[in-house]
């Protein structure tokens, strides 16, 4: 791998080697631009991932057992949480994100849903919603479509275009056929058919056949929350990052914990200040900076990058950095069936239903979503969190776990979350991380429509399970969101510098050589399956960066 000197300005520093950063790095470096990617997490390879629930378990349940390889560590990086500005935030793990080369794309479920046309123009179609920042995007589906296609073909997505009657236009089919259906998919399809709904083959970022020198999925089942041992999951680690490194123009520098974006006297960014693995401060000089650190860490970095020209943080002249935070909304139900489904095998999702994707005024509230069927608990997680209405130990507990581990199915709905200006990422005034930097402070309350939508989808999930022939089913509680793995909306894109942080090409309105590309660019939530759109946006943004470098609009080695 190419190594760059910190004192020589590279064309681009990219912050974060995740779903977006990996794509940006590959696109820039294959165009011949020199790129250093700073990633706070470790550089793990396929051989570092194991079929070991305990090792991974810490990731979701407790940072105190096992070790957390793939995600942010709340002991070193606490975040604080409060519901409103009037409260003092308390330390409470709220945000989870991938923290290794490949970022969240390493451990994600690999659901790979495009947005629909409506997602970009929903404010125009639906009307305004008072007290929210519900708005159209500055781009349309048609503008993004070529980049969805590019992402699918570059990364390797399996699916069946045309199978979903509600899907938006695809200019090309998926590069790989769908993965084999599982019992969860069959039951979802059965239930949907009975109800007059439409189940279709899930588009997944997992290879159903060998592709670009990578192995096909072995159906091992250690998928969601795990790194793929085969490189069959189309993480940026397995797909585009090796391509970036092969160009000789890209260095992935792991263990680099960023502190501040440096600016020159003209108010242009000129490098990244970061702590290396020995917690020594370093500065990588660069002609431009692309922040792909996720919907929480990106605004945090901008807010703490204060200077005399930018006393409120970088790209924040209008005070909107960190505002309109969108956390994930979900709902669902669990059922048990007569025969074993054996969901512990193979990929998590094989069928999806999007009959209720669009919001419908008849429901009396704004909201929509899509549903998949899955059972994604490994044995420890399942047994520990076993249904609260059953004994927690003893012979009845053992019998229940024995009978139901292979026979349980969740219908999981992925839903809209309304953007609210009062929902924010800010810097905590008291709490610091292990590097002495201010902790991320989350202020969040759901809009009432989010909760109504969750209740609506819980009922649809119950209907589906019943129609599929479940012996028993029960809905999940509808609660305000206080924990999220999908972090969106804190540096929203828009045409008006007064009401947005970046323009439609992800360039900061305030700083011409600063770009922000990740979930933070989102204007609205879509249906809470952001990865596919984050990556399409990253391809589009990178395309524009290359053009800008070629025309000399931003300085580069071209």
């Amino acid at each position, binding site marked *: 791998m190419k190594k760059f000197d910190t004192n020589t300005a590279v064309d681009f520093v990219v912050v974060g080697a995740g779903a977006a950063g990996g794509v940006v790095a590959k696109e820039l470096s294959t165009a011949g631009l020199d790129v250093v990617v700073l990633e706070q997490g470790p550089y793990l390879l396929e051989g570092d991932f194991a079929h070991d629930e305990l090792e991974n378990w810490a990731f979701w349940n407790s940072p105190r057992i096992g070790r957390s390889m793939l995600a942010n560590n709340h002991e070193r990086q606490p975040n604080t949480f409060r519901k409103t500005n009037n409260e003092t935030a308390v330390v409470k793990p709220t945000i989870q994100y991938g923290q290794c080369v490949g970022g969240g794309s390493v451990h994600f479920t690999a659901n790979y849903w495009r947005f629909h046309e409506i997602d970009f123009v929903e404010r125009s179609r639906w009307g305004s919603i008072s007290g929210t920042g519900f708005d159209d995007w500055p781009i349309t589906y048609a503008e993004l479509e070529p980049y969805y296609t590019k992402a699918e073909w570059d990364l390797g997505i399996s699916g069946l275009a045309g199978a979903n009657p509600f899907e938006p236009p695809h200019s090309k089919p998926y590069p790989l056929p769908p993965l084999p*259906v599982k019992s969860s998919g069959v039951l979802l399809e059965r239930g949907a058919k009975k109800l007059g709904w439409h189940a279709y083959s899930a588009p997944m970022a997992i290879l159903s056949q060998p592709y670009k020198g990578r192995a096909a999925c072995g159906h091992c089942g250690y998928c969601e929350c795990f790194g793929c041992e*085969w490189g069959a999951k189309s993480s940026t680690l397995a797909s585009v990052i090796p391509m970036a490194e092969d160009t000789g123009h890209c260095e992935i520098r792991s263990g680099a914990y960023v502190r501040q974006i440096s600016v020159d006297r003209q108010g242009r960014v000129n490098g990244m200040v970061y702590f290396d693995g020995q917690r020594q401060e370093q500065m990588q000089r660069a002609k431009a900076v692309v922040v792909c650190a996720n919907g929480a860490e990106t605004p945090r970095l901008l807010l703490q990058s204060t200077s005399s020209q930018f006393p409120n943080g970088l790209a924040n002249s209008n005070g909107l950095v960190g505002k309109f935070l969108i956390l994930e909304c979900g709902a669902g139900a669990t059922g048990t069936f007569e025969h*074993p489904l054996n969901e512990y095998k193979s990929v998590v999702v094989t069928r999806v239903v999007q009959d209720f994707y669009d919001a419908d005024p008849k429901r009396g509230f704004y909201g929509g979503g899509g549903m998949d069927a899955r059972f994604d608990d490994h044995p420890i997680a399942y047994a520990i969190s076993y249904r609260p209405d059953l004994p927690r130990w003893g012979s009845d507990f053992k019998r229940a776990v024995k009978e139901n581990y*292979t026979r349980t199915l969740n219908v999981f709905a992925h839903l809209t979350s309304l953007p609210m200006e009062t929902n924010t990422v800010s810097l905590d005034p008291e709490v610091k991380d292990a590097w002495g930097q201010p902790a991320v402070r989350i202020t969040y309350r759901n809009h009432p429509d989010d909760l109504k939508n969750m209740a609506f989808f819980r009922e649809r999930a119950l209907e589906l399970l019943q129609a599929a022939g479940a012996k028993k089913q029960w809905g999940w509680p509808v609660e305000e969101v206080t924990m999220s793995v999908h972090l969106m909306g804190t540096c929203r894109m828009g045409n008006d510098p007064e009401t947005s942080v970046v323009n439609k090409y992800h360039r900061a309105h305030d700083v011409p050589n600063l770009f922000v590309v990740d979930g933070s660019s989102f204007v609205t939530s879509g249906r809470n399956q952001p990865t596919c759109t984050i990556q399409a946006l990253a391809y589009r943004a990178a395309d524009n960066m290359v053009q800008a470098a070629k025309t000399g609009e931003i300085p580069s080695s071209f």
Partner: protein
Amino acid sequence: MENDSRRQFLFRSATGLGGAWLNMQWPAILAAQNHAREAANSHTVLVFQFFSPEQAAEVEAAAAQIIPADDTPGAREARVIYFIDRALVTFDKDKQPAYLLGLRELQVKTLELFPLAKSFSGLTSPQQIEVLHAIEKTDFFELLRLHTIVGFFARPEYGGNHNQVGWKLIGLEDKMTYEPPFGYYDAEYNKRQ
């Protein structure tokens, strides 16, 4: 055994996919082998590193009520006690005081309910269940439940789940890869198609 099959599997898969893939994945395969070898070398010897034999008997008896043996093995047969003992000298070291305190609580409650008892493990099974119900709201019981379940279902390399009894109980076959059909309903579906 599992580690051997895992290693062989990785080789088989690699060679089955052709030279290019093998070359590309070579460092990854070596790393996977090392991981497997380390795990194999660290097999638990049946010696306690934290508990005294008396303490181990008490903890094991309580774990064996959390996941009891019936027509299938329980926590005792899964050697969960060795998992817990090892956890307390490795990744869960900071729980040692909680166990020492918890063992005293267990003793106090045992004597309170059964003044003539010599130990918790010496009680009859119904008596043990009664004592555990009396402490089931305590932090210690919660910790013991957690460790028992984790030890029962974690990889056998961690000392518990002996002979994979935890996985066998719930119908999980431990293979490196699977082929469709995976479950009953997709098998049925594929037949119909």
